């Protein structure tokens, strides 16, 4: 994969987002975002890794009321990554996310709004959206 965009939060490889995370060189625990000290074993300093561009939905909600900084309604998921770490992301796709389904991590606008524009951020793209795009 070719990195087409990188920032402090993720690398963008073609259309897939790989979130930046930290892995403990001592015990292997993974944290996203990374930290200074491993919360599992106390080791100081975490190695930087990129998470897989796919994850599994642990749980979800549709937010109907938020703050003025966000355009509701929007969906959120907690997604479990193969590196054994859970990350909260907005979701996009048709219908509700489903617990246990696989999602691709992609860059998409929303739900945050700044100066009247939706801000690009990593999203969990559900199967419904994928089948629509792929099919």
């Amino acid at each position, binding site marked *: 994969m070719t990195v087409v965009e990188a920032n402090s939060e993720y690398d963008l490889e073609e259309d897939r987002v790989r979130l930046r995370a930290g892995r403990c060189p001592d015990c292997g625990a993974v944290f996203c975002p990374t930290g200074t000290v491993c919360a599992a074993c106390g080791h100081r300093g975490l190695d930087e890794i990129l998470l897989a561009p796919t994850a599994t939905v642990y749980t979800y909600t549709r*937010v109907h009321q938020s703050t003025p900084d966000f355009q509701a309604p929007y969906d959120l998921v907690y997604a479990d990554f193969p590196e054994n770490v859970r990350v909260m992301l907005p979701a996009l796709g048709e219908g509700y996310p489903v617990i246990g389904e696989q999602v691709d991590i992609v860059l998409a606008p929303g739900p945050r709004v700044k100066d009247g524009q939706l801000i690009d951020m990593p999203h969990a793209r559900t199967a419904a959206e994928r089948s629509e795009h792929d099919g």
Partner: protein
Amino acid sequence: MDDVYVLGAGMTPFGKHPDRTAADLGAAAVLEALDDAGVALADIEAAWVGSVFQGMAMGQRALGDGGISGIPITNVENACSSGSTAIWDAAMSIRAGVYEVVIALGVEHLTGQFRGAFTPDESDIEAQRGLTMPSVYAMRAQRHFAEFGTTTEQLAAIASKNKRNAALNPLAQFKKPVTVEEVLASRMIADPLHLQECAPVSDGASAVVLVSKAKRDQLGRGRAIRLAASVLKSGRKEVGLPEMTFEDLTHRAAEEAYAVSGIGPEEIRFAEVHDCFSIAEALRVEGLGLFPRGEYPARVVKGEADLDGRLPVNGSGGLLGKGHPLGATGVAQVVEVVRQLRGEAGDRQIPGAKVGLAHCRGGKAQGVEGTACTVNILTV
């Protein structure tokens, strides 16, 4: 270590008080607690004051209005557990033998301070991606549904129970019962949580006077309630893929409270728990070990947590019915337990109540399940 007793309790009505200040509310609760304890302003040796969004030196402002100054005053911020953390601090000072008469105050004035949903701190990456406090609990509810077969109607029954209890509490924000159907008809905030399943924005204050055993014997043996355990824990940084339907934080605080007091969960007659959302009440009582894991919502429907049930939960109306002025909430829970144990709870009195538990759990920060949790166990 010295035993600790609650000798006095005071609390303002919870609700919208646009014409009052936090200091004014705090002073009112302090004066009521002092009168209830039968102690003078000059008897108070030190004070701890919990609040969350009240700015600098809330304690000095409220206590100053209440006629108390010059003594050590410590301001405490620990999210929704700020007030109950103030109790924990105050109780420790007596246990350590430093003071004999102290006061813990919780106070909050939120009317006009917020637009939209309450969120974690803005520096938190989850808040920047759209996480609100209702959505945290909504996602935990969805998971509870998937794992245990819990339903929206069962969660609505929790909210309905607490609003029904609040209607019996003259100090509660909500004055009339709400049916399950009315809960489900209120607008959706974060699926599956409806408006009536979310704690309201509230103003209010509550205070307790804590004394040593010697002072209890001297000042008022009959009305004193023993603080058998006061425990504070913070959330552990999460590692791996923790279960979001089980509260490690609540569980650890409860286990220590049961060990310290020698009172097990089977001996708890009633509980005030942190029901910031309907699902939160289920997560709390299951974490406390008061009901089997995954079963609480269904048992609420059967009436087991009603005022006349096996183990009444949130007889005061809880946060959902009584209101949730953040810093005041944890102290108000203890005020309610004290009044129940004294037989002063009026229309919501639980007959024969001898042992009660107050659980308060606050906040959300990146990577931790909850920021702070207190469990207080009180006995006659």
